């Protein structure tokens, strides 16, 4: 066992050899959480018990994991990182949880997150600020802050996060773990708190690329409860991981290496790409010319969808309700005004403005048109290359507090991840070493065509293996 603790593969090997039992493994992680989470605040809720399950051949049987607190488990509290849902008890299970339960995976707890998954640092949690296990004075990234920190700090074997504009990949990069955002529609979102419905997707955060493929194989698939899921077959994504990459065409978008990219990040990302070249991949410069508009498009579409989705928190059916409201209108305004933190308020207002009479065409329709151009950039690129490679985030983990008073600076953390959600394509962040000046983890992002998870997993696996071999 290395310093990262158990991976799915190593834990399964120990379970199968009989040197470890699922109960003991579960208790091992409960102890680690009790000892270390006071410094990290990765978890919101650890009131879950071991559920006896026949030790099957399933890759995830007996594996302890964590769920982001915006995914529902019937009968337990789900806050979404917000005070407005502090006492909310889920009335049903999310499909992702049900699939992991059926596979025998063991839920350790629900992880802390930026409020309603809005944020890039874990500082927007209405509860504790999440800290990066690699350096607790720095942010772990967000919004799946606790899910990434729990994996990086070995407080679970793997976790699930959700990614609307980079919320799995960016924290994975900043914490030095593997984060996968599957194709839009690949994983059911039934039981995931809706944030921006045309962008949200659930995916795994793991210690290795192999583990990522394992988890995706279990959670992917069509679901009658989520009509945006693709009615197409799933596959065992671990099978093609180790295939030779001779001749794999890797596109390098010039727009992802411009101003704003830290030198130490560029250096490590280029070293990662060099690994692929040495293994026979063909590296080709490409252009995604509308990349410069992606963040602006995102900050119209995402808040617009947020303003609609968060209307359900109205103080009437569940969640916080202001006790001093005199009439129905005040129930809404007082419950929402004091129940939401600053970031949800900011985005609800931005979206309400963009959708309001007189501005709808100029903002919302314009943004959806530029979104079509961004998607077209990717479609054209994938006629020439198999995968696209670049940085996941422009910098390594930044100090807590550095960007919390400047929303725009914070939003720029996601400049390389948001185009992927707008286009709906899959992407993975894989660690590619530590920055020369900071000594902190850097993530390399691979982007694939629609349902091209196997290709990006394979590229990421080769980088991971190549970097281990070079050590």
């Amino acid at each position, binding site marked *: 066992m290395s310093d990262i603790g158990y991976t799915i593969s190593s834990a399964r090997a120990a379970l199968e050899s009989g040197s470890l039992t699922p109960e003991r493994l579960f208790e091992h992680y409960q102890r680690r959480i009790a000892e270390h989470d006071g410094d990290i605040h990765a978890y919101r809720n650890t009131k879950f018990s071991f559920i006896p399950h026949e030790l099957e051949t399933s890759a995830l049987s007996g594996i302890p994991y964590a769920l982001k607190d915006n995914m529902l488990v019937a009968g337990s509290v789900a806050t979404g990182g917000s005070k407005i849902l502090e006492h*909310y*008890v889920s*009335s*049903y299970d999310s499909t992702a949880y049900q699939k992991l339960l059926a596979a025998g995976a063991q839920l350790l707890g629900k992880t802390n997150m930026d409020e309603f998954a809005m944020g890039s640092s874990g500082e927007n949690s209405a509860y504790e600020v999440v800290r990066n296990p690699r350096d607790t004075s720095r942010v772990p990234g967000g919004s799946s802050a606790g899910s990434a920190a729990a994996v990086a700090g070995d407080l679970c074997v793997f976790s699930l996060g959700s990614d609307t504009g980079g919320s799995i990949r960016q924290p994975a990069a900043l914490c030095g773990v593997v984060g996968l955002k599957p194709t*839009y*529609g690949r994983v059911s979102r039934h039981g995931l708190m809706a944030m921006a419905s*045309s962008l949200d997707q659930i995916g795994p955060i793991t210690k290795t690329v192999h583990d990522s493929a394992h988890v995706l194989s279990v959670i992917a698939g069509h679901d*009658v409860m989520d009509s945006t899921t*693709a*009615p197409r077959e799933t596959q065992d994504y671990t099978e093609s991981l180790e295939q030779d990459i001779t001749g794999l065409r890797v596109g390098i978008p010039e727009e992802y290496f411009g101003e704003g990219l830290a030198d130490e990040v560029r250096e490590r990302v280029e070293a990662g790409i060099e690994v692929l070249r040495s293994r026979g991949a063909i590296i080709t410069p490409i252009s995604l010319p*509308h990349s*410069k*508009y992606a*963040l*602006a498009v995102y*900050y*119209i579409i995402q808040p617009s969808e947020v*303003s609609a989705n968060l209307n359900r928190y109205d*103080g*009437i*059916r*569940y*969640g916080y*309700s202001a006790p001093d*409201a*005199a*009439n*129905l*209108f*005040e*129930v*809404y*305004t*007082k419950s*929402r*005004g*004091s129940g939401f933190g*600053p970031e949800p*308020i*900011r985005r*609800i*207002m*931005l979206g*309400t*403005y963009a959708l309001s009479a007189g501005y709808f065409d100029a*903002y919302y329709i*314009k*943004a*959806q*048109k*530029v*979104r*079509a*151009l961004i*998607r077209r950039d990717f479609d054209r690129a994938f006629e020439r290359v198999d995968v696209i490679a670049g940085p996941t985030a422009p910098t390594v983990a930044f100090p807590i507090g550095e960007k919390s008073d400047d*929303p*725009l600076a914070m939003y720029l953390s996601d400049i390389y991840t948001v185009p992927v959600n707008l*286009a*709906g394509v899959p992407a993975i962040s894989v660690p590619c070493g530590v920055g020369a000046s900071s000594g902190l983890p850097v993530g390399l992002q691979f982007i694939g065509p*629609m349902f091209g998870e196997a290709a990006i997993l394979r590229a990421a696996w080769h980088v991971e293996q190549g970097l281990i071999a070079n050590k």
Partner: protein
Amino acid sequence: MLTEKEIEHIAKLARLELTHEMRERMRKDLSSVLDYIALLETADTSGVEPLYQVTGLQNQTRPDVRRGDFSMDAAATERLIGQAPAQQGRFVKVKSVKAT
């Protein structure tokens, strides 16, 4: 820069009662984000159709048979409305719409 009146109007549409400090903070934050978003004006979108969703899936239907996984009983009622702050019998109770 958005005006105070505009911020008040947006907050009302969004059903958010905000303190004066929060309104001022939002006025500043929203204005700076809107300035950034103005970048889109330079994108040429002539002849481009908006992309509302990326799957291409439309009107997903299931066989027209009773699914049966949502049978209502007392426990289901409790799960669904038990967390409403005000209830009466099987109903969620709301305040009067009239200003009082």
